[in-house]
């Protein structure tokens, strides 16, 4: 019996090792390739560890386009979206959770419908709208449509609803303004939910490729994902070593954040799924 148990444990462990390999090896391969020379990338069978680590691949990737511009655009877009969303969802969620007003159901229904409308469905009409306003190919076109988040309102409203009414009554008796109630009571109590939402929003918009691809036509407003996808041809053939080095610029910050806040991030995304 102990032998069978041991064998089972060993098999279980081997299985998990294999499973982890399936998910980690592609990343390892990316790192390995990003440090190779061109001739090492076209070796078959492949070599895992390059003879000499070519750190200059990163410089070549970075210098193959206006990457400082892409990077700054990415930061400006993701951060502006996050700040705008935090402000707009706190107020909207508070109103939906704590007030009763005419048309409340309708407006909340509208919010829920928005939750189900993906950008991939409405990009063409929104593009035409932006072109009419003359803000195509600008950072505004990447930020404005996401100045609020239906998911954020949904998440925060749940949290605000759980705050006890007595607490608010007491605050109101003390002549606290609604403004104070929101920022001194509600927001601090909803901190975990806000952190969850912030991680979710930032990662989603930092990674986004679709919206910037559709809304931009020049480097003026392009973001990092677009820039990376454009490093294709260097030295004639596809320069996989440069491409993977560029890819690292995009992936490593997110993976670092993931290592630091793994539990928070998983919780954020799983919650966004379960709702």
């Amino acid at each position, binding site marked *: 019996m102990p032998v069978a148990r041991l064998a089972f444990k060993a098999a279980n462990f081997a299985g998990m090792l294999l499973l982890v390999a399936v998910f980690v090896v*592609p990343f390892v391969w*990316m790192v390995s390739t990003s440090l190779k020379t061109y001739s090492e*990338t076209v070796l078959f069978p492949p070599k895992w560890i390059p003879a000499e680590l070519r750190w200059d691949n990163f410089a070549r990737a970075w210098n193959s386009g206006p990457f400082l511009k892409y990077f700054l655009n990415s930061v400006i877009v993701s951060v502006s979206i996050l700040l705008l969303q935090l*402000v707009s969802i706190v107020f909207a969620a508070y109103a939906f959770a704590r007030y009763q007003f005419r048309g409340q159901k309708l407006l909340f229904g509208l919010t829920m419908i928005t939750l189900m409308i993906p950008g991939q469905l409405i990009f063409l*009409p929104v593009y035409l709208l932006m072109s009419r306003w003359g803000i195509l190919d600008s950072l505004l076109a990447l930020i404005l449509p996401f100045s609020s988040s239906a998911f954020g309102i949904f998440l925060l409203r749940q949290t605000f609803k759980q705050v006890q009414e007595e607490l608010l009554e007491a605050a109101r008796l003390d002549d606290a303004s*609604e403004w104070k109630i929101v920022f001194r009571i509600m927001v601090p109590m909803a901190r975990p939910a806000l952190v969850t939402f912030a991680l979710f929003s930032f990662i989603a918009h930092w990674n986004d490729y679709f919206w910037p691809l559709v809304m931009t036509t020049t480097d003026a407003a392009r973001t990092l994902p677009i820039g990376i996808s454009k490093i294709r041809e260097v030295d004639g053939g596809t320069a996989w070593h440069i491409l993977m080095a560029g890819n690292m610029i995009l992936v490593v910050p997110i993976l670092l954040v993931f290592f630091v806040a793994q539990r928070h991030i998983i919780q954020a995304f799983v919650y966004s*799924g379960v709702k």
Partner: protein
Amino acid sequence: MNVWRLVRPYAMVAPSIVTFGVFFIYPIFYMIYLSVHSWDFVSPEKPFVGLDNFAELAGSREFIEVLGNSFNYTLMTVSLTIVVSLFLALWLNRKGVLYGIVQGAIFSPHIISLVSVSLVWMWLMDPQFGLLNWLLASIGLPRLEWLSHPDSSLLSLVLVAVWKGVGFNTLVFIAGLQSIPSELYEAAELDESSRLTTWCRITLPMLSPTLFFLVIINLIGSFQVFETIAIMTQGGPVNSTNTLVYYIYQYGFRFFKIGYASAAGVVLLAVIGLLTLLYFKLLSKKVHYR
């Protein structure tokens, strides 16, 4: 003061509602309007053409192929993702550092940009120098063409989508499993119910809301696939990976057939609308069961 009290809630929701209205709700109607007009984006006139655009779609072999690709891609991606994730969830639903690490590893592709995922997999699937063909060759299997052959291109994209999505789905399943009250299992144990009976009578029914939910959001998500196609295949070879959103993108932005592209958008709207409706139907049922 009283007026402000009355207006306050509206002022608070206004920024959000205006954003949703202008950028999400109104465009839906605008798209429907465009779908019954003919427009090339530059001409000042947009003549009304009735259902001509839809008739053209129905008559286009390319579009029928695109629809077929979308359905194939979606069905394969969703069924594989769900089956694999359910299996992994049952396997990995345990406490412990080791299980935590494994869960983290399989989840990690979910937070990586689709651009990165696409580029890495393109490289892995390179027919000449890719790691996958080396692996196949080293265990004595024939090399594959992966993305460059119409027979394997769509399947290769499915593989990438499953790889990216399986971790997220597994963790949602695990959350579902953990929300099943342990008293149910204790009662089953008292009744000396077999493992299979316990699984069929307790685990599966209690997990069904999570299962339905994941199936629907995966269906909706897969129908919108765009990034991997734009980066890895551009719809090719010979249209074998062209799907709805990429088709709309091509006709809208390359050929400037705005009306025609909008009509294809309305088809996508119908599919997503139907799935959403189904979801809310199931959701209201779920509430009744509890």
